[in-house]
């Protein structure tokens, strides 16, 4: 979706605010909500793509106003209720419904380090054929899906060159909506800065994006 999260190329956001010796978490609640999000993902009720999309669905003014982990608080609450793991009544009261059965956590201390080590699904599956080749010129498709996508607006319709084939990955546009994995190749595509931003950009500079087969067409 063309959401406020798709920030590449936007202007007027102000200077970067740098904090010296920044702590990993600024308050205990940030660490707790980080861990709760990670631990709940172990239930596999939703995927990383679903999580990303849930943040994109935040109303734009709230997305911009909230701190990073504040977004995670709202997202987790929403996903718990959406998935049925927690009822609205339980969320409001903060107490488990009387007589409800107690689950066994999907993530235990013993499995937590393995869970952190779990990589993101990809493969070199030879059965999934690449649609493009390294050094091929390609154009990013001009698509505007209302759901999740990892094709930023600033690259759509622009022409670049494939510099590397990363192998096979799940397609986020369908996986986020539980509409299938649609496994396909992902490539590193180099776009000249001038192609993206016009003649004022440096003639030498470039931006590389990682792009799925379905985002590309021959140029």
């Amino acid at each position: 979706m063309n959401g406020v999260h798709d920030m590449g190329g936007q202007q007027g956001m102000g200077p970067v605010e740098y904090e010296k010796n920044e702590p990993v978490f600024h308050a205990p609640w940030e660490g707790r909500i980080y861990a709760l999000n990670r631990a709940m993902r172990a239930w596999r009720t939703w995927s990383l793509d679903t999580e990303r999309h849930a943040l994109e669905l935040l109303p734009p003014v709230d997305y911009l106003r909230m701190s990073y982990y504040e977004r995670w608080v709202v997202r987790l609450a929403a996903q718990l209720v959406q998935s049925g793991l927690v009822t609205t009544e339980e969320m409001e009261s903060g107490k488990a419904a009387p007589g409800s059965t107690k689950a066994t956590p999907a993530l235990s201390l013993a499995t937590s380090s393995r869970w952190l080590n779990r990589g993101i699904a990809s493969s070199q599956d030879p059965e999934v054929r690449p649609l493009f080749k390294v050094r091929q010129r390609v154009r990013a498709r001009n698509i505007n899906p209302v759901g999740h996508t990892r094709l930023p607006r600033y690259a759509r319709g622009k022409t670049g060159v494939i510099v590397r084939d990363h192998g096979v990955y799940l397609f986020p546009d369908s996986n986020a909506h539980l509409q299938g994995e649609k496994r396909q190749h992902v490539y590193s595509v180099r776009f000249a800065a001038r192609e993206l931003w016009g003649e004022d950009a440096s003639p030498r500079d470039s931006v590389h994006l990682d792009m799925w087969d379905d985002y590309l067409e021959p140029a």
Partner: protein
Amino acid sequence: MDETRRGFLKAAVTTAGAAVTPDRVHAQGSGQSQAVPSDLTLRVKSLESLLLEKGLVDRAALDALIDTMEHKVGPRNGARVVARAWIDPAYKKRLLENAPAAIAELGYDSGQGEHMLVVENGPKVHNLIVCTLCSCYPWPVLGLPPVWYKSAPYRSRAVIDPRGILREFGTELAEDVEVRVWDSTAELRYIVLPERPAGTEKMTEEQLAALITRDAMVGVAKVTLPRPEANA
């Protein structure tokens, strides 16, 4: 379905205690304020106790996840990888060809780093890492990203004005240096292999690692020698 989700999120925002309250005066503008409303502390406590009561999470596992991010992963890991690459050309070659395997040689392999790529700076090439869509970052070697990396100013400008961003970080590049920005739009995670500064030829691997900063491995800065002591 998305409309329902959006509707629910809207409700969640307003009932979350996340709505604007008078103590959130710093939360305007860039959206990267660290003002912490006390109701967020309470809300997360309440959420955690509910999930514990329902048996959906395990407290010891939560503590372990936090401990890992606070104490076990972080830019010191990345600094060791870079220092090793500087002193060992064979290691550097392996690192550039297969970063996850070379990084695992040093014992680091937690999540968000399975598909890592190392991009090398040189006299005429400077690399910069960003995630314009969210907050993708190479956790095993750099830990969790700093607030500025996840903020609107950095995410919006790194791709359209990388030289301006670099200047804000005090990194001035000559016109003839090529800037390559890497937008982490898929599951690949990037780390910059900075240039080894002159004058470090006699340093040990540990001394070198101490010079290497997180900012240099994101590409917003270069590795520099500490300024010499003022003349006595």
